[in-house]
């Protein structure tokens, strides 16, 4: 393989932010390729600043480079200015590690973490010089694979992907690499044979091996086309995070990226059971990293990288057993070290944690109450009381924070205007609490439109129309307009609509995505490039409608486009949880209470890995009851099932 650097170098002098394309990060590798090695190009289909910090991609990068017979490099979607120059000069997509052409790799592996990047996936495949449609690829073309949360409904991209990986990648990546290596060793011909072999690996889905039939707007059936192809594809789950202390050498970029800090994953999975949250459903069960390993990864990581900030990442970090102790140890291990805890639950955020965090610099704090009224929070099973939120905000402001950000969703099932306006009331009260401590108290309210996701209890719910979401956003904007110390931000309902199209779409969307891409619709998650009309035109041209794809409620018996895939969750559990949601009935957190058999543990003979048998102290801990002393398992929930 040859480096394109000499040809790229003069082009970089002409583009915005050329540091995106140079590699050279601390921790980057320049692997040498031996005969027979499987060369992976891990592609993040968005800009370098967004893609570089992705932990999944960094974990696979290290694991593949440690694995005998494989090497891995990285690529990110070139911004439109460089893409134009590449195309003008006949140059392809390239790796940032050695600047080798993408088409010379054996595998192009995409990370799919958001629906709006789908057109970028096609663009990257095309820029690699590879046919965008899997059916058009020849034996010598790279295998195109995808992983990440969006692969729980990969159907919209089924025409373009050779294979899709469900679940944790740590173990399956080596199995895939070995299958490709032996196929390559046998001459690398008969691509279909390779696809059949890949389909035998648990967690690997090969879309071209399945026939999908349709019945009006719905899917009628999804069936394997060949004997020996599994009818149902189960996700992969790593049982013990302690065995996977990765990334060991987190990449330290030379230019500014999002989450530009040391990131240490403290647990995977979440059983709080928020019904809108796909991540919490598909990553079960909870697997905590041993606290000592967290401490080691933090102290070694800080020393190696030179960062002065560490984020303890998970879906709800305040739930980590002994979190106050761990944060205290980190803050105590160096001067000016700041700890950030993304995804803080307000009912688990205490003065104790706030006090620990103030050791270093105080950046803003973000809480996610998600909904404005207790009724609405019962529907979504985010059982935090208003008092929990106020106590958390009070703790934050009392410990010196001046900025608090609150995340909410609107367009939730059964939402009324009273629920929507409840968001404004909460924000107003939080700002008033802040002013008790500091005159400059600022509360930012960030509201997104709700997009129902596969493998959640809300997968049957018809999404609010873009017009309805806009109306609700305006309602809030007007209610908050004169509110002192409150800033209101909202996600564009038009973008929410397109997310909804891709979120629960089926294979017929392939032609739509391809048309949007061919008409220049890349970087759709960037407001300056997003173009709803491209999508609406493409849907109309292919006889599809947003009513069918997005706004329609699904029926109980309907075959969903992802019914042949499995995150372990029983469909009847999800349906019951959906009925409970509409009945405003909560469901407790099963890591501290008896199992209700959602399927994520029982189906795979797994168990939670949680150091503490009881919930952390403080707030209501998802019960709606006052558990400020903590340490006791609630046996009854407010609003229990009748």
């Amino acid at each position, binding site marked *: 393989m040859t480096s394109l650097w000499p040809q790229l170098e003069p082009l970089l002098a002409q583009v915005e932010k050329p540091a995106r394309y*140079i590699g050279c990060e601390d921790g*980057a*590798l*320049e692997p040498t390729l031996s005969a027979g090695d499987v060369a992976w190009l891990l592609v993040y289909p968005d800009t370098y600043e967004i893609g570089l910090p992705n932990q999944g991609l960094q974990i696979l990068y290290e694991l593949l480079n440690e694995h005998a017979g494989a090497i891995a490099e990285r690529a990110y979607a070139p911004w439109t200015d460089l893409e134009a120059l590449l195309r003008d000069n006949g140059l392809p997509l390239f790796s940032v590690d050695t600047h080798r052409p993408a088409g010379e790799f054996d595998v192009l592996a995409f990370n799919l973490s958001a629906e709006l990047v789908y057109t970028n996936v096609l663009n990257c495949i095309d820029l690699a010089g590879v046919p965008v449609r899997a059916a058009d690829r020849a034996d010598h073309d790279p295998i195109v694979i995808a992983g990440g949360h969006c692969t729980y409904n990969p159907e919209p991209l089924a025409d373009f992907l050779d294979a899709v990986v469900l679940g944790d990648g740590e173990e399956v990546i080596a199995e895939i690499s070995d299958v490709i290596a032996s196929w390559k060793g046998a001459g690398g011909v008969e691509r279909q044979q390779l696809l059949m072999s890949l389909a035998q690996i648990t967690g690997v889905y090969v879309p071209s091996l399945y026939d999908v039939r349709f019945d009006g707007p719905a899917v009628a059936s999804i069936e394997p086309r060949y004997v020996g192809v599994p009818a149902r594809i189960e996700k992969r789950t790593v049982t013990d995070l302690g065995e996977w202390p990765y990334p060991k*050498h987190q990449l330290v970029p*030379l230019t*500014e990226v999002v989450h*530009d800090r040391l990131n240490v994953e403290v647990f995977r999975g979440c059983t709080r059971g928020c019904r809108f949250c796909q991540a919490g459903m598909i990553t079960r069960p909870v697997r905590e990293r041993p606290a000592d390993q967290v401490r080691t990864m933090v102290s070694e990581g800080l020393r190696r990288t030179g*960062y002065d900030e560490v984020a303890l990442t998970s879906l709800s970090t305040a739930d980590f057993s002994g979190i106050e102790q761990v944060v205290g140890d980190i803050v105590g291990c160096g001067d000016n070290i700041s700890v950030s805890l993304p995804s803080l639950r307000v009912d688990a955020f205490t003065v104790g944690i706030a006090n620990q965090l103030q050791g270093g610099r105080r950046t803003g704090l973000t809480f996610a109450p998600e909904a404005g009224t207790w009724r609405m929070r019962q529907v979504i099973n985010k059982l935090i009381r208003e008092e929990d939120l106020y106590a958390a905000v009070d703790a934050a402001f009392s410990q*010196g924070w001046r900025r608090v950000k609150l995340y909410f969703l609107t367009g939730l099932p059964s939402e009324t205007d009273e629920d929507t306006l409840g968001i404004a009331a909460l924000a107003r009260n939080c700002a008033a609490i802040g002013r008790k401590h500091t005159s400059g108290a600022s509360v930012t309210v960030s509201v997104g439109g709700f997009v129902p996701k596969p493998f959640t209890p809300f997968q049957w719910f018809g999404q609010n129309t873009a017009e309805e979401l806009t109306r609700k956003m305006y309602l809030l904007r007007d209610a908050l307009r004169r509110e002192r110390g409150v800033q209101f931000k909202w996600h564009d309902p038009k973008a929410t609509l397109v997310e909804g199209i891709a979120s629960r779409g089926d294979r017929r969307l392939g032609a739509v995505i391809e048309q949007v891409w061919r008409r220049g619709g890349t970087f759709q998650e960037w407001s300056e490039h997003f173009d709803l009309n491209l999508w609406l035109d493409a849907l109309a041209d292919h006889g599809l409608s947003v009513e069918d794809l997005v706004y329609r409620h699904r029926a109980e018996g309907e075959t969903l486009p992802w019914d042949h895939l499995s995150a372990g969750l029983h469909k009847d559990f999800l349906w019951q949880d959906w009925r409970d949601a509409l009945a405003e009935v909560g469901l407790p957190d099963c890591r501290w209470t008896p199992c209700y058999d959602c399927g994520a543990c029982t189906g795979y003979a797994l168990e939670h890995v949680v150091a503490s048998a009881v919930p952390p102290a403080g707030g209501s801990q998802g019960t709606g009851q006052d558990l400020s002393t903590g340490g006791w398992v609630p046996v009854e929930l407010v609003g229990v099932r009748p």
Partner: protein
Amino acid sequence: MIRFRLRHTKLGKLRFISHRDIARVWERALRKADMPVAYTAGFSPRPKLAFGLALSTGHESMAEYLDIELRPDEGLEIDVTTLPERLNEQLPPGIDVTAAAPLAPGTLSLQESVTSCTWRIEVPGLAPAAVSDLATAALAADALVLTRVRKGKEVTDDLRPAILSLTITGPTATGTELEAELAVHPRSVRPAELLRAISPGHPLVEGRVLRVAQWTWRDGARHEPLATSQPPREDPDVRPRVAAAVERAQPQPFGERLLA
């Protein structure tokens, strides 16, 4: 107050990172080297670092400067002779500390004291004789007027007083290398502006640009802003140093690196 001034390079692929990026690289490198850097007090403590004139993204340099303030307690123990080596171990390839010296109390900041910079500017597609003619004409001119758009308004400047010297330093693989000493006041003249000013009819393309030196004016003579026995290289061929930087960039074989 204990302060050091460092001179460092910015060469190779690293030339594509911005001035702000360089500041972050330094903050991390100083922490990795366990340097007792002084921090500002207040809500968001920042390390006390003072950078000199910004270098445009894409330009290389042999002579970037940085002032570091150390904590009075541990800062006294820092050995200036081993400082470059200690920092280079933590800096990315292409950024090499080539000199370090303590700063006397009351020394003016880099921003206040630097008066001119020497640049090597590659002009692709033109032979040395052609560039030489342009340079000679420019130096003979009474005024070199350049119009540029600034904050939406057209501004006209005479660049001639800012051009302190122009020399042809030789042919390159694709054109000619021009050495220029350009004044920093009343405003910093960019190499691209020089190329526009000396050839108004046919704008010259800016190839590789290297800042070779920065100068301060003291006692009627120009000096490097750092009192040191290690002068910046005057050798027109900087390639050996680039090669050395690139060589340092070579990672260990990846197997060993991961096992380490």
